[in-house]
């Protein structure tokens, strides 16, 4: 059978990597040892690219809750909530999320990707306008495409550029949907949410904030940048994921908007996907309870982030943003980044290799995500692995 010609360009990149003997996109963790350790190629490896910000994946209470749900409610739901019915626990998780954010209602999706896809495509269709930050995650771009709305990019984290584009829309601006992220996953930089809220209010538009990388991480209660900047009440839609600080899989949207429930009927990614398994829901509900009182975990995460950030800065590396749970090291070109990434792996440290077009501009990144579960010694070992690289600093 002939190979698909559409994949030719991708195949060429894959072969180029194979020639170098490096496969950053096919890493296999043979055995997971803890939230931040695994065996890769028989080597004990510190995992510094997991997004497991609070180390929740091995939390004993979450495991017990999942085990109990597995034994009492089975392995899966085998269908979508619209066609096959919801379990009571789906709705209970939605109530938990709404209460956690102090919002009127919540909808749960089967992945974080689908939360953006499902919300944006339901809220904005043909003839509508969505304004998105240029550095938005693929799920935001794909949500716009699925909905078929006119999609306008504004310069990254630039409220003045957003305002300029809103002005150009004239009367249409009042019906527009603005989409930003609390923290951008590649560089770990925060959005100036207060300023975006001011622009939104000036034009009477709606604002959706994706807190995937900030929920559980930022704010005293762990609600994210919306809490840290005091704008939670002014944001129409807060979207998030269970697959980072909550240590599971799934996504959600919370809102005070009266007809949020109608989104369920209009959202194809909600209607046509199997719903979350009982064990996932049970573990996520427990993780949310743990997260709410996890002041100590957030404190440890902050200390670890500061330790890694200052350690790498002291080594002369250029970092993508001020201290945050995402610490991105900017590396010269793609090949250099590839070799550096492989060097780190062979020295027992796994980080994420990020190259254009997934990164902003032309920059290649070695992206670390810090966890509260890292020990100070592990953070120092990550820094030592970076220090052992003899190549150029960006």
């Amino acid at each position: 059978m002939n190979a698909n010609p559409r994949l030719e360009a991708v195949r060429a990149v894959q072969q180029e990597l194979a020639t170098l003997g490096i496969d950053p996109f096919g890493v296999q963790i043979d055995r997971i040892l803890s939230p931040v350790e695994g065996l890769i190629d028989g080597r004990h490896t510190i995992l510094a690219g997991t997004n497991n910000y609070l180390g929740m994946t091995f939390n004993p209470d979450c495991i017990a809750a999942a085990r109990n749900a597995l034994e009492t409610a089975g392995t899966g739901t085998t269908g979508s909530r619209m066609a096959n019915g919801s379990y009571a626990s789906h709705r209970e998780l939605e109530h938990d999320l709404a209460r956690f954010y102090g919002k009127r209602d919540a909808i749960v999706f089967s992945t974080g990707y689908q939360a953006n896809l499902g919300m944006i495509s339901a809220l904005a269709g043909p003839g509508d306008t969505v304004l998105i930050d240029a550095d938005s995650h693929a799920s935001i771009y794909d949500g716009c495409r699925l909905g078929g709305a006119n999609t306008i990019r504004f310069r990254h984290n630039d409220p003045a550029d957003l305002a300029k584009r809103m002005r150009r829309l004239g009367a249409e601006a009042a019906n527009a949907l603005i989409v930003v992220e609390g923290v951008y996953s590649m560089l770990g930089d925060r959005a100036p949410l207060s300023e975006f809220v001011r622009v939104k209010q000036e034009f009477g538009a709606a604002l959706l904030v994706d807190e995937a990388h900030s929920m559980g991480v930022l704010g005293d209660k762990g609600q994210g940048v919306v809490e840290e900047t005091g704008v939670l009440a002014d944001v129409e839609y807060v979207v998030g994921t269970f697959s980072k600080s909550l240590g599971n899989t799934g996504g959600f949207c919370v809102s005070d908007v009266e007809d949020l429930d109608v989104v369920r009927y209009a959202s194809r990614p909600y209607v046509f996907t199997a719903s979350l398994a009982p064990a996932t829901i049970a573990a996520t509900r427990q993780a949310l309870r743990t997260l709410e009182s996890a002041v100590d975990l957030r404190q440890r995460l902050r200390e670890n982030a500061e330790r890694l950030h200052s350690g790498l800065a002291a080594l002369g590396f250029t970092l993508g943003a001020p201290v945050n749970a995402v610490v991105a090291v900017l590396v010269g070109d793609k090949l250099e980044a590839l070799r550096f990434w492989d060097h780190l792996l062979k020295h027992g440290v796994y980080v994420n290799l990020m190259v254009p077009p997934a990164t902003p501009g032309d920059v290649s990144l070695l992206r670390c995500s810090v966890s509260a579960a890292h020990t100070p010694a592990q953070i120092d070992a990550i820094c030592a692995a970076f220090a052992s690289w003899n190549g150029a600093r960006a």
Partner: protein
Amino acid sequence: MNHHDVVAQLIELVTPIAEGRVELIDENTGLTSELALDSLKVMDLVVAVEDQFDISVPINALAEIRTVGDFASLIQKCVGENA
């Protein structure tokens, strides 16, 4: 602003981004097929166009754009909507 003027301004904007891949860029030059602009370069061009013409170009409208002339027509449409 007529089509010819827009094409001329667009060629000025795309020339540095195309990095000399085509000696003579005209209305019929393919943005990806001949100038080999990848998705990042296309976005660089869109930003430059938006600044030059004081418009917002919807990214969903880019799917149909093949040539410099196609893009010039889209710019004219956006300028008209803005007027």
